[in-house]
């Protein structure tokens, strides 16, 4: 008995078409990943609890030779794991002021110290609110008084957070 072939439509699919479609789906997924994954920036998941914040970090009494290593727009990341913490929107270097005891007048005084500088950096990022005045960026708590080791492309150091501002409000 002869087998009768099933009637085919004009644009019938074969196994090659299915495989190629699979390749397309994977390729599109790969391209989307490559275009939209740019390190930690994309990792910050947005929710109702996500705020755009600007926070200030400081490092005091650095050797003067470390001046000028930070640039506007630099990424700031955690030293461990290089997780993105935001981008530099402002920075300044000032001469360090040190307190000392004046034995003659028997009072505390302060003056700038030769070759010592203070670094202040303002960083902008999206952050998750953990509690009042406490935020989290890629696992790092951001709140006044927090100390953390950070890296920039051309500089690294241990900084302390001195201010956190939410767009539209200030937590200092």
């Amino acid at each position, binding site marked *: 008995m002869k087998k009768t072939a099933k009637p085919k439509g004009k*644009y*019938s*699919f074969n196994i*090659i*078409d299915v495989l*190629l*479609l699979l*390749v*397309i789906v994977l*390729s*599109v997924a*790969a*391209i989307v990943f*490559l*275009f939209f994954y*740019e*390190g930690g920036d994309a990792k910050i998941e947005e929710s109702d609890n996500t705020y755009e914040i600007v926070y200030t970090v400081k490092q005091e009494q*650095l*050797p003067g*030779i*470390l001046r000028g*290593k930070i640039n506007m727009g630099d*990424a700031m*990341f955690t*030293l461990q794991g*290089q997780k993105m913490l935001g981008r530099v929107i402002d920075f300044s270097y000032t001469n360090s002021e*040190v307190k*000392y*005891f*004046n*034995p*003659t007048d028997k009072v505390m*005084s302060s*003056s700038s*110290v*030769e*070759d010592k500088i203070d670094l202040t950096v303002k960083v902008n990022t999206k952050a998750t609110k953990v509690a009042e005045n406490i935020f989290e960026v890629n696992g790092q708590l951001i709140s006044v008084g927090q100390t953390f080791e950070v*890296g*920039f*492309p*051309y*500089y*690294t*150091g241990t900084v302390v957070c001195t201010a956190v501002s939410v767009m539209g409000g200030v937590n200092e």
Partner: protein
Amino acid sequence: MTANENSVRKKIRISIIDVIIVITVLACIAGGVLHYRVYENNNKVITDDVFYVSMRFSSIENSSGQKIETGDSLYLNDGKVLLGTVNEVTEEDASFYYNDEVTGELKKGKDPGAKDISVVVEIKGELTKENGFLANGVKYVAAGMILDVYSDMFSAKGLIFDLEAKTE
């Protein structure tokens, strides 16, 4: 045309769907290449090149017998791996801070019994806009970092304070 030839032609017939699929695949590959050239390549500023990294070793006592010279190989204590080769050495009397006896103010002094030694080390590595310099392609090195290093006649912790690409 024989029946056999007809059968072969039928087997290799390309449908409109095949053409669309091939065009899409080619477009995806082109997109990937474009992304690499625009993003990855732009992020990577310099690859596999020589950089001059400046380090300062503070208050190395003259009596310690420590010596570091041009051409010395400098190793990282962490992992005992080669960091680079010393290209330049400059020394000056060590700086230190003290409180003025009368005013109490912090002042800077010089100690002729010790040296502040600055060295420039030639290190191979890569530089990216986002993550900075990776010494030997793996270790993040930036100004402000303190590295524990040694050579055959020298061992100390040094502060990285500058980095620049070698220009021919």
